[in-house]
Structures are given as structure tokens and as C-alpha cells.
């Protein structure tokens, strides 16, 4: 699959996917992982026949259903009922099939009361539930799914995942592209790892995931782009590097829960316009796909008012110790300007790091040894009013 990149000056031919061969047996559930630009989505689009390859061949035996987006073909003006018909037809269902399944779909989505309301008046949750419900009742022999679980709340995601498990268990083949490692682990027994358009590993889910996270192919603690041409960004700003450092300034992937963490972002600011003030943004996401927080360097007020000159900017965000929970975190890095808001560079999963709790009584969880709940684990201030010693007899008197 060849796609022409719109590079600033040179016209380079870029192979989004090359020399990738594999066979998937009926009933297998296969996850496809790899960082952004690895070729995952291209692979899925080829299999789904949305784009055509420049060379190579794929054979799919059976009816193919693809789910590259939740709510494809939904029309805001139409009622829920109408959208079930429309979306079903778009996803490849026959009219009779949709009519037979309408009740089931409505029940799954839980929108009975609003079936004749235009979906533009739906809450976003209802909209998503209905959209997924239609897709979930497709009965293809091969189901191709792209990252659709990245939307919606945790309950919704759980429901989707459950439904996909059912589809897999009923003997259908599922090919699933995702960034969410827990989802891949739960759903797939086999994982294919892609990188830069090539196949790197293919096998047992646990093992391939470990390869991915350990090899640095997975978002490791450092990403660096040699030249602006290769870096994500546009004519205003391009990312140069993203790093995770511990409190001694060492680039590391494994961090102690008690110590501060620094996220450092460097970018090329290329536009000589004093009023254009790019800011660096970071989103920190945990393994379940929950965004813990988003932060921007405009929180530094002095910097926000500073007039900019072209050059390399380094912005560092300091996360205190005893704040993050245990586990793996993924960092999205972006450069944007405001009024109007424009995102100039964006790299999802730019880096990742792992926070471990080795505290012995001095951490947030103190002496408590079992799993400590919460998406963050901040050390908070407590104020205590200590009991004044009260003579027992006096207390008796007050009670009496």
C-alpha cells in the first residue's frame, strides 16, 4: 500500500504497509497493535476494501463486516428507528435482517422511549449506545474493528467488549486494532505487532504485548525526531523530542511512585510571528484509556505573555511525587496555538512510562499491602482535631 505523503519539498514515496503476510483461521480473535503510523489502520482499510493496495493480495473467506467508526452513516435529522435501518444497510445488512433485529438492537441500546426522536436530540451517551448496538448486531463471518472502543464511558466500553467477546465465541473471526492494551489482552488470544509498515511479531497475545512494551517499539520513555521533515507537525511547529525523566534528570521508563516525574517536550518553532504563541500540551492516559489530566505550558503565566522567536523550545512539566497511581501511563504530546485554536503537531502515545510502588510505609498507602484503588494516588493534607483529654467523671456528668 503506497500513500503519497505531502512533504514540504521532496516528493517521497512512502510505503504504509509492505511485506506483511499472515493467515487467520476461522474463529480466531486477533489483535493488531503498533504505534501510530505503524500501518494498523491501513491494513484494516485494505481488508475492508475501503482503499485498494498498490500491490499484494488478500483473500477473505466469508462475509466481511467492518466497524471503523461508531455511528457511520447516522443522520442527525432522522429518528432512532430510521437510523437503525439506515446504519444497518450501510454496514451491509439486508432489509429483512435489520427488521428482524430491530427489537434486539433497541433493547441493547436502551433507547425504547426515544425511538421516534431525531438522534440530534439524543445525549451523546444514548447516541453512542444506539450506534454501537446496530454495529454489534451485524453477523459477518469476519469482523474488522478499529479502535471504536476508544469512545464512550467505561461502562459502555465494557459492554462493547463483552459483545465482541460473544461475537468471537460464536465462531466468528474478529480482527481488532487497538491502543488499549487491556482490551486487546481481554479479547484476543493472538496479537500481530506492526512497526513502520512491517510485521514485527505474531503470536501469543501476552508474549507479543510484552515484546511491544519492552522493545521500545511500544512508546518508551524517549522519542526523538532527527530532522523537522520527519517530525510530526506543520509549517508552524514540529515536535523534536519527548522524554520522561526522573527527579535526577535520568531518562527512564520505570519511576518510583514517591518521586517526582518530569515530562519534557522539545519542539521547533518555525514561524517568525511574534503574536503566534504555540503552547506545548500533554495528556496523560492510563492503561484503561482514562485521561488522567491534560496540561499546557500556558499555565506558566510568564511564558504565556512572552513574545516568541523561531527556534527550539524546551518545555518541561513537573508531576509531583506521590501523585500518580501504579501502572503504565501513555503520554500524548501536542503543539497548538489559540484564537483560533489550531493543533500544529500531535503525537498520541509519544512516550510511556511505568510507575511502581515500592513504598514501605512512607507512601500513600502506608502499611496497607493490598491493591489501593484510584486512578491517581495523591498524598493529600489531612487536618486533624485531636481529642482533648476529658475527665471521665466530667463526661458522666454531661451525659447525665
Amino acid at each position, binding site marked *: 500500500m503506497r500513500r503519497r505523503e505531502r512533504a514540504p519539498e521532496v516528493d517521497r514515496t512512502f510505503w504504509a504497509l509492505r511485506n506483511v503476510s499472515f493467515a487467520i483461521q476461522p474463529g480466531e480473535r486477533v489483535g493488531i497493535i503498533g504505534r501510530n503510523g505503524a500501518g494498523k489502520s491501513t491494513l484494516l482499510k485494505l481488508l475492508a476494501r475501503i482503499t485498494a493496495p*498498490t500491490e499484494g493480495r488478500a483473500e477473505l473467506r466469508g462475509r466481511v463486516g467492518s466497524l471503523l467508526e461508531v455511528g457511520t452513516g447516522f443522520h442527525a435529522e432522522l429518528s432512532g428507528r430510521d437510523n437503525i435501518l439506515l446504519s444497518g444497510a450501510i454496514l451491509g445488512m439486508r432489509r429483512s435482517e435489520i427488521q428482524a433485529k430491530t427489537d434486539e438492537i433497541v433493547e441493547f441500546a436502551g433507547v425504547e422511549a426515544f425511538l421516534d426522536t431525531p438522534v440530534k436530540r439524543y445525549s451523546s451517551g444514548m447516541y453512542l449506545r444506539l450506534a454501537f448496538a446496530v454495529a454489534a448486531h451485524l453477523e459477518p463471518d469476519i469482523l474488522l474493528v478499529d479502535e471504536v472502543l476508544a469512545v464512550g464511558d467505561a461502562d459502555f466500553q465494557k459492554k462493547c467488549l463483552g459483545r465482541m467477546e460473544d461475537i468471537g465465541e460464536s465462531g466468528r473471526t474478529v480482527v481488532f486494532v487497538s491502543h488499549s492494551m487491556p482490551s486487546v489482552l481481554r479479547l484476543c488470544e493472538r496479537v500481530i505487532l506492526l512497526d513502520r509498515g512491517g510485521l514485527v511479531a505474531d503470536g501469543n497475545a501476552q508474549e507479543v504485548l510484552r515484546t511491544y512494551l519492552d522493545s521500545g517499539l511500544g512508546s518508551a520513555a524517549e522519542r526523538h525526531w532527527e530532522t523537522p521533515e520527519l517530525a510530526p507537525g506543520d509549517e508552524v511547529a514540529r515536535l523534536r523530542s519527548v522524554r520522561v525523566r526522573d527527579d535526577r534528570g535520568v531518562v527512564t521508563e520505570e519511576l518510583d511512585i514517591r518521586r517526582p516525574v518530569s515530562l519534557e517536550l522539545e519542539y521547533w518553532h518555525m514561524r517568525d510571528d511574534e503574536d503566534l504563541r504555540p503552547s506545548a500540551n500533554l495528556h496523560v492516559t492510563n492503561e484503561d484509556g482514562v485521561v488522567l489530566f491534560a496540561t499546557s505550558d500556558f499555565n506558566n503565566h510568564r511564558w504565556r505573555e512572552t513574545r516568541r522567536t523561531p527556534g527550539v523550545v524546551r518545555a518541561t512539566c513537573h508531576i509531583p511525587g506521590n501523585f500518580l497511581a501504579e501502572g503504565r501511563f501513555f503520554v500524548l504530546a501536542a503543539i497548538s496555538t489559540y484564537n483560533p485554536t489550531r493543533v500544529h503537531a500531535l503525537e498520541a502515545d509519544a512516550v510511556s512510562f511505568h510507575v511502581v510502588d515500592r513504598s514501605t510505609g512512607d507512601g500513600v498507602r502506608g502499611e496497607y499491602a493490598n491493591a489501593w484503588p484510584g486512578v491517581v494516588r495523591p498524598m493529600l493534607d489531612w487536618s486533624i482535631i485531636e481529642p482533648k483529654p476529658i475527665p471521665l467523671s466530667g463526661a458522666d456528668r454531661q451525659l447525665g
Partner: protein
Amino acid sequence: MAPERAVAPSVVVVTPPRGWAALNLRDLWAHRDLVYFLAWRDVKVRYAQASIGVAWAVLQPLLMMVVFTVFLGRLAKVPSDGIPYPVFAFSGLLPWTYFSNATGTATESLVSSSNLVSKVYFPRLAIPLAALLSWLPDLLVATGMLIMMMLAYGLMPAWTTVLLPVFALYALLAASSVSVWLSALNVAYRDVRYAVPFLIQLWLFATPVVYPASLVPGRFRALFGLNPMAGVVEGFRWGLLGRGHPPWALMGVSAAVALVLLVGGLYHFRRVEHGFADVI
């Protein structure tokens, strides 16, 4: 319960597109339910929040008829083959309005459905085809209006009125012959969307909508038929009013031109459709 799975599962083979692929209209037929629902959506959405709803289908040609009647019928005294000018103009404006609306929306259809094109597979032809079909109900409603108008002028519809579906198909053929080209070209070259409304405006005057084909000297008549819409409009008018000789020559030439354009357009569409998702 349904024995659908009894058949051996079909094999889909994904390979690079090679030159002039076969038309593969069978795939389009397999997706006929989708074409139906897309057309149904277009109709439903078009009048969803319009307070006078489907009356727009009649209002548009009606108002144009009034304008042409005043300026061409009364002031310029354009001949109308012995038919009262308002009826004459209205009977021409119906297939014309169909053509101009259908071609306009079909041209834009792929681009305005880019979310579908880049996310789901189906024969891309389904989208412009649905857009073309979605204007047929309007044509039907407006034709009902025309028949009432004829009765008001004391004109009885000719027996050939029962052939109305054939004339509608003929209009569909003419609109498709142009739209398969324009919709596909519009994906890569958005210039098309700016050129089309202008083109359609000019086209109106190259078509015997507000003047009779008989105004064109006989030796140019066949040449005139090279415009696929010439035969459609004259045919439609003859079909409903039944005045004069049936315009066989004109209709024949127009239909042949439309067919050639359509087949060429279908091959062109087929050749470029696999790239739609990348360029849209």
C-alpha cells in the same frame, strides 16, 4: 433459522486495481437495499424541517413557470406548439427541474458522504445513484400538479400518460449519464462543484424547455438531440399532452447519446473509485 449460511461462504479477493476493470454491476445489485435506504434518507431529510414540506417539489417549477410565462409567453410571444404557454412551460420544467436537482445533488453526493466513503465498503456508485433516485418522488408529485393544471385548461392527458414511468426512467438515464462523470470528477477536482450550477443554467437554454424544438430548423433537429435532455423534455411533453408527432428521432438520438455517456461514465467511475477514500 434462515438457511442463508448453507451456501459456501463467498471469497473476497483484495488485489491492486488493474486498468479498466469490469463494471461489476452485480455488486451494486447486491447492495440494492442500501441504495433504497440512501435514497429514502435523502427524501426524508430534505423535507424534515421544512414547514411546507413536499410542496417545495411543486413550488420550484411553478414559480419558474410563472416567470417564463410572463417574460417569454406574454412579452416575447414565444410559440408553444398551440399549447397554452403556461402548460407548455410547466410540462417542460418538470423533467428539467428533476434533471437540474438530481444532477446537482448527485455531483455533490460523494463528497458530502465522505464519512461513508472513508469508513465503509460498498459500491460507491450507490451514493450518486441514490441521489438521482431521491428526486423521482418530487417529479411524480409535480406531474400530478401538471395534470390538474391541464384539466383546468380543458386539456385531457393523452393515453401515453400511462408511460410516465418510462419517461421518468428516461430522465433518470439522462441525469445519470452526466452525474456519473461529474460526481467522480468532483472527488478529485472540487472545481466541478462551482462549474455545475453555472453549466446547468446555460444548459436550460440549450434544451427545449421554454421554447419548442420546432423552433429549431429541421436540419439541425438531429444535432439538437445530441443534448440528452432535448429528447427527455420533448418526449415528456408529448407523452403527457399528446400533441403533434411523437419526436422519435430526437428521442432516439438523445437516448443513444445518454447511453454512450453513461457507459463511458460508468467505466471511468469504476476506474477511479478505489482511490476515492484516499483523495476525498
